C-alpha cells in the first residue's frame, strides 16, 4: 500500500537490524512507551530481529490498560441506566470492571454504541434529545483534542443531554514516574509518535537532561521502530542523552498548536490513578470549571467505587516493565483474552494480549 508498504520492507528492516548489531557493544534496555508500538513490535516480530541483550521493555502506553478499575465501574454503572446512550471506543467494551464488562451490560439491555470519534457522540446527543448521551473519554494526548472538540461543540450547541466520563492521561508525567522508581531499568525511550504529533517534543528536553536518558520520537511502522531503536542505541553507545525525532514526517517540534490551544481551553491538569501503576500527580486531564456541566461523574453522582484488583494479576509489573507478560503465573492459564484478569490482556494493544495472540508457542516466547 502506498505510504505503508515502503515502511514494511523486509530487506530494509534487516539492514537496520544489522546496523544495530554492528554498533552495539553492550546490553541496553529500551522502553517503547506506546501500546501501538508494542503491538507492532510483537505483530511484526521486530524484537526477533534485534541482537541479543537489546531488550525492549513495553511501557504503560495503552490507554485502555491504564484506565483504573473504578473508572470502568463508573462507566458500567452509567451505561446500565435506562435513560442513557453510552458511547465508547470499541476497545473499552471488553475491559472487565470488578464484576462485569460493557459488552455484558449491552447484552442486558444497556444502550451502548461504538463510535470512532467523540464528535459522533455529540451527533447522537442531537439526534436523541430525550436521552442522556455519555461519551467515555479515554486515551493519551492523541485522542484528547477530539474529546476537547466534542465538549467545545456541545457547549456551542448548548446541548444539555451530553456529558463525558473522562479518564485522559498524559505521557511525560508517567515517564518521570517510571524514571524516579528505584527499580527502573529503562535506559532509553522511544517516545510515542502520535502523542508528539499533537504535543510536539519540547517537554521531553528536561526529562532527557534530568535523568540522562535518550528520547527518540518514533513512529509505528516496522522501519520507523527499527530506526528509532538504532537512533537510541547510537545515543547510548556514544554517551549522549538527547531528544531526537525519527518521525519527522508527522511530528514537528512545537506539535499541533490549535489542538493544544483547544485542550487548554477545555481541560485542566489533574492527578490521575493509572491502573497497575498507582496515582501519578499532574498526569491526567479533567474538564475545566467552565465545562463542569459536561462532567458525567458530577451529573450522575456515581458512587465512589472502592475496588481491588485480582491478586493473580501482575499487570502492574508488566506495565512498569518489571516483567514480561509470559513471566506472570496467570498468563495463558487463568488469564486469556476471553477471560482477562487485567486490562493488559484485554486491550488489543496491551502487552499481555499481544504476547498471547502472537507468541504463545514456547519457542517464540524466548529470552526476549
Amino acid at each position, binding site marked *: *500500500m*502506498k505510504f*505503508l508498504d515502503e515502511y514494511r520492507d523486509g530487506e530494509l528492516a534487516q539492514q537496520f537490524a544489522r546496523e544495530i548489531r554492528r554498533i552495539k557493544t553492550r546490553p541496553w534496555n529500551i522502553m517503547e512507551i506506546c501500546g501501538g508500538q508494542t503491538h507492532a513490535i510483537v505483530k511484526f*516480530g521486530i524484537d*526477533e*530481529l534485534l541482537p541479543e541483550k537489546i531488550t525492549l521493555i513495553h511501557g504503560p502506553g495503552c490507554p485502555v490498560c491504564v484506565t483504573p478499575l473504578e473508572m470502568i465501574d463508573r462507566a458500567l454503572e452509567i451505561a446500565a441506566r435506562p435513560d442513557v446512550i453510552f458511547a465508547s471506543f*470499541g476497545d473499552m467494551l471488553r475491559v472487565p470492571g470488578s464484576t462485569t464488562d460493557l459488552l455484558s451490560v449491552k447484552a442486558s439491555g444497556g444502550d451502548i454504541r461504538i463510535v*470512532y470519534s467523540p464528535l459522533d457522540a455529540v451527533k447522537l446527543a442531537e439526534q436523541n434529545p430525550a436521552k442522556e448521551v455519555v461519551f467515555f473519554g479515554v486515551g493519551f494526548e492523541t485522542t484528547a483534542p477530539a474529546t476537547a472538540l466534542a465538549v467545545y461543540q456541545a457547549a456551542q450547541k448548548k446541548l444539555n443531554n451530553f456529558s463525558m466520563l473522562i479518564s485522559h492521561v498524559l505521557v511525560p508525567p508517567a515517564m518521570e514516574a517510571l524514571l524516579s522508581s528505584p527499580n527502573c531499568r529503562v535506559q532509553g525511550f522511544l517516545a510515542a509518535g502520535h502523542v508528539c504529533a499533537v504535543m510536539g517534543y519540547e517537554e521531553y528536553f528536561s526529562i532527557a537532561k534530568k535523568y540522562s536518558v535518550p528520547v527518540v520520537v518514533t513512529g509505528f511502522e*516496522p522501519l520507523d521502530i527499527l530506526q528509532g531503536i538504532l537512533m537510541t542505541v547510537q545515543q547510548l553507545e556514544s554517551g549522549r542523552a538527547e531528544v531526537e525525532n525519527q518521525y519527522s514526517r508527522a511530528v514537528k517540534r512545537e506539535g499541533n498548536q490549535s489542538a493544544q490551544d483547544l485542550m487548554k481551553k477545555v481541560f485542566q491538569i489533574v492527578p490521575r490513578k493509572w491502573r497497575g501503576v498507582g496515582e501519578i500527580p499532574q498526569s491526567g486531564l479533567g474538564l475545566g470549571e467552565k465545562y463542569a456541566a459536561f462532567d458525567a461523574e458530577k451529573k450522575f453522582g456515581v458512587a465512589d467505587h472502592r475496588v481491588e484488583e485480582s491478586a493473580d494479576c501482575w499487570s502492574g509489573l508488566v506495565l512498569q516493565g518489571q516483567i514480561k507478560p509470559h513471566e506472570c503465573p496467570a498468563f495463558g492459564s487463568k488469564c486469556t483474552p*476471553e477471560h482477562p484478569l487485567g486490562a493488559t490482556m484485554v486491550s488489543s494493544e496491551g502487552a499481555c494480549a499481544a504476547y498471547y495472540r502472537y507468541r504463545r508457542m514456547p519457542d517464540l516466547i524466548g529470552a526476549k
Partner: protein
Amino acid sequence: MSAQKPIEFSGACPIPISQYPQVLMAHGGGGKLMHQLIGKMFLAAFSNPLLDTQHDAAVAELTGKKIAFTTDSYVVRPMFFPGGDIGSMAVHGTVNDLAMAGARPIYLSSAFIIEEGLPMETLWKIVCSMRDAAEKCGVQIITGDTKVVDKGKGDGVFINTAGIGVIEHGQKITPQNVQAGDAILVSGDLGRHGMAIMAVREGLQFESQIESDSAPVHEIILQLLKAGIEIHCLRDLTRGGLTSALNEIAEAAKRTLLVEEKAIPVREDVHTACEILGLDPLQVACEGRFVAFVAAKDSERALQILRSDEAGTSAALIGKVAGKSSPLVTLKSVIGANRILDMPSGEQLPRIC
C-alpha cells in the same frame, strides 16, 4: 422396594455461569467465544459422527447416493450494500457451504422472518435478487416458510436457507484429511465483503467504492475436481475471515499450518480501510472466497484453474502444512519474523489509536 437409581442432574448449562451468563454479540462473531458456544452447547447436545466432522456441509449417504446438506441464516445490515444484498447473499452463502464439500448444489429452502412494517417494495427487491442469484447458481428454491414478528422484534428481515447438493466425486474433502506437505491456496483477494459493509456502516468514502465479493464458488470447485486436483479440504472465508478458517482447520486436522503474510492477496483499498478502522484484513469476512488444501503436486495446476476465473485473478499460494502435529497457525510477517496467527476472541473491536 427396589433401590431407585439416583436421579442424575445433567441439565446444567455447560458454559460456566461465572464467565458469561448471557449470550453476547461475540458469541456470534466467528471467534473463540462462538467456537466455545458451539462446542460446549450444540455439539455436546447433538453429537453424532456426521455433525462431529464440523464441516461447512454434512456429507451423508441416502439411498446409495452421496449428498451434502447445510443451512445458514442471514442477518446482514445494511440489507443492501455495494456488490450485493441480503437476498443474493442468502443464496450464495448456502451454495458455497455445499461447494465446500465438493457438491453440486441442487435445491434450497428459504425461510423469511419479516418484521412488521417492512415495505413490500423492499421485500420484493430482496426476493427478486434471490430468484436471480438462484438462477445464476443453477439451483431451485423448492420449499419455504414465512413468519412475521411485531415491529421492534426483528430488524427488517432475517433469511434462513438450507441447501442440498449431490456429490459426484470420490474424494474425501474434510479438515481431518489435511496432510503434511499440502499446499494452502486462497481463491482470490480477501476482506472485500466485510469492508464494503463497514464502509457503508461507518460512512467511509474512498476514491472508488469497495464492492462485496459475494459470489457463488461452486463452479470453480467443480472445475478443480474435474481436472483431477487432489483436494483435501475446502473452507469458505466468512465470519472471522482467513484467520478463523485456518485455525478451525488446524484444530480439526491437528496440524501446524505455515503461511506467509506477503503472499496473502489483499486489495489496496481494503488494506487502507482496515488500517483506518484498526481492523485486521485477515480477520475480515469474505462471501465469495475460500481456502483450499491441495496435494503439493497439484498446487500449480490448481492455481492456474483458480486464476482462469474472473473472480480469482489474484488467487495465491499462501503457505503449506507442516510435518508437526500440534494444532497451530504461524505467520511469517512481512519483515520476515514468525508469529502465531491466533483465532480472534470475539468480534473485532475497533482500536482507540
